[in-house]
């Protein structure tokens, strides 16, 4: 964390708090039946999303998964964008066409995932490839769960990125579970980080609940990518403190494990580090929390006011308007 200013450290704290508060509000909306469909939490994993994305710079592009709310916020989308998505509103980034964190545009620095796990990795490799062809100073980053590393798309995408030495940072969030499936049923390897060797790329493992450590590792990987050193595979050790989605009571999770990890809460840890290193006082952090809470409340209000899409929108935007197709046509000779 050598190269972080006090302001930046506080910003990391703020983003993690924002991540958590947005989700807390979403839970309220969910309980009120205002969220359409499922709600996916990242409680306890905020340090990974925030710390990794924070290592990027303007112009870089991420491909988040549904638990990477923190990364989406760091990339500049607003809580309102997220709320309107979850409430399926016309004003949401996807206009109500798709759910939760399924939104993004290259020019906004975010590529929307599809639900099929692993699929983002080849696509992000393609983003990086295009960036290189376009002579852009562009680093790409994406995330994958312990479960997602078992997909063929993960393997094909990362192998291709490695062969091409593309500026792609892949962050494997090892939170112990894939829905109800424990790590040991997902892979026989002791860790995820060892998988980096298969692709001949550097692998690093990090305490995923220590936002500053996460930032450092991610920053090294991003710098390497930017310098032409190719992909890095990072395993972030963290824990899924909630069920797969709100409906899942995670009865299959050992209580002790949850207890143990509750004590490792990334936000509390960040706070105590900041206070211990006297980078901030408890009061300062409290006022950040205060400000975040107020911001988010305003955003919820605005989001709730926003309209549902009009039905006919369902038919729009399957194809580009024909106009966009280049004209130059010579009729076939008879």
């Amino acid at each position, binding site marked *: 964390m050598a190269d972080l200013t006090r302001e930046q450290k506080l910003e990391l704290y703020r983003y993690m708090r924002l991540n958590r508060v947005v989700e807390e509000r979403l839970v309220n909306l969910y309980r009120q039946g205002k969220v*359409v*469909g499922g709600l996916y939490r990242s409680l306890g994993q905020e340090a990974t999303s925030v710390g990794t994305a924070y290592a990027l710079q303007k112009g870089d592009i991420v491909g988040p998964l549904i638990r990477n709310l923190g990364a989406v916020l760091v990339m500049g989308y607003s809580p309102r964008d997220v709320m309107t998505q979850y409430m*399926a*509103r*016309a004003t949401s980034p*996807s206009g*109500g*066409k*798709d*759910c939760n964190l*399924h939104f993004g545009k290259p020019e906004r620095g975010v590529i929307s995932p*599809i*639900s*099929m*796990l*692993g699929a983002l990795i080849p696509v992000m490799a393609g983003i990086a490839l295009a960036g290189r062809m376009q002579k852009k100073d562009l680093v790409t980053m994406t995330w994958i769960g312990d*479960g*997602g590393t*078992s*997909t*063929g*798309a993960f393997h094909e995408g990362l192998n291709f990125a490695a062969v091409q030495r593309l500026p792609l940072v892949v962050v494997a969030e090892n939170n112990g579970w*894939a*829905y*109800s*499936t424990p790590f040991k*049923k*997902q*892979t026989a390897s002791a860790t995820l980080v060892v998988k980096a060797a298969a692709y001949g790329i550097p692998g690093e493992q990090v305490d995923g609940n220590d936002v500053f450590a996460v930032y450092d590792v991610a920053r090294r990987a991003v710098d390497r990518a930017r310098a032409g050193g190719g992909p890095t595979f990072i395993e972030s050790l963290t824990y899924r403190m909630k069920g797969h989605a709100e409906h899942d009571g995670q009865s*299959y999770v050992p209580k002790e494990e949850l207890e143990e990890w509750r004590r490792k809460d990334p936000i509390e840890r960040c706070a105590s580090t900041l206070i211990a290193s006297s980078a901030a006082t408890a009061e300062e952090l409290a006022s950040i929390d205060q400000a975040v809470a107020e911001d988010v409340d305003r955003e919820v209000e605005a989001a709730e006011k926003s309209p*549902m*899409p*009009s*039905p*006919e*929108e*369902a*038919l729009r935007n*399957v194809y580009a308007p024909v106009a966009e197709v280049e004209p130059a046509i010579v009729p076939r000779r008879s």
Partner: protein
Amino acid sequence: MSGALHLGGPDPGAPAGKGQTTYVDAIREGIREEMARDERVFLIGEDIGVYGGAFKVTDGLIQEFGEERVIDTPIAETAIVGAAVGAAMMGMRPVAEMQFIDFISCAFDMITNFAAKSRYRTGVGVPLVIRGPSGGGVHGGPFHSQNPEAYFAHTPGLKIVQPATAYDAKGLIKAAIRDDDPVLFFEHKFLYRRIKEELPSEDYIVPIGKATVRRPGRDLSIITYGAMVWTALEAARTLEAEGIDAEIVDLRTLFPMDEETVLESVAKTNKAILLHEATRTGGIGAEIAAVLSERCFEYLDGPLLRVTAPDTPVPYSPPLEEFFLPNSEKVCRAARALAAY
């Protein structure tokens, strides 16, 4: 999609009466009975064990049959189907779950090239069942609402079934497990807990390859399957009040299709509506239209009308999805036009 569902018999809207079995329980019962009667049957998929599956279709089966026969896998549809193909070649009877049927796209090669062609190429049969929740109406968005059955109905070597009732759900899953060829079993998630009926206590199957007439009628035939059978029935009740008597054919098996039952119905009514929830172009409705205009041409007194979802992905937001999905009103509109034709 219609909220209240009626298919004669006890009103499924009513609270589960004693002895009533829901669609989801019927599937589980069918699997349970087959696992009990045939030790070659086993289950493989994601979160199907301790968790009992995302929709609880396999709930309790790991307790009853053990980890050996209810296998939780990594997130790897190609491995799930591939392992099932290999086991099936060895004479086992694997039942593979796709957590949502949308993810079957990740096993497309294994299904269409390995499972479907094995018997033809090498004489080695693949008695495999692949099942999972399909369909919309629950605001699942583009990747948790698809109806991919038509992709597979263009693949010789596969059999495709889609039950509309709890009775058929149990009878067809049992028939699928006993079948010597790969069967894709498409469940409709909207029906899981919305319909129920009393099921016979004795062992039965619903034969693969046989359609059934859900409602006899004189004026026109509605050829459909899956959840849309309920939509058709709802429409038929409305139309009846208007003096239009619709016959409803539930295909049950989409491939190989029971052409005889379809032809018989249309030869009688001389008009047909082809109804499905899947998108329009290249859907099952197209195949039915081809069969009818090829084999039943002389009997047709009107155009064959398709009532389907439009050619778009499945949108997420309720107003969009309602607009997208076929419903009884859309069916009635087509039926009125056709009756007046």
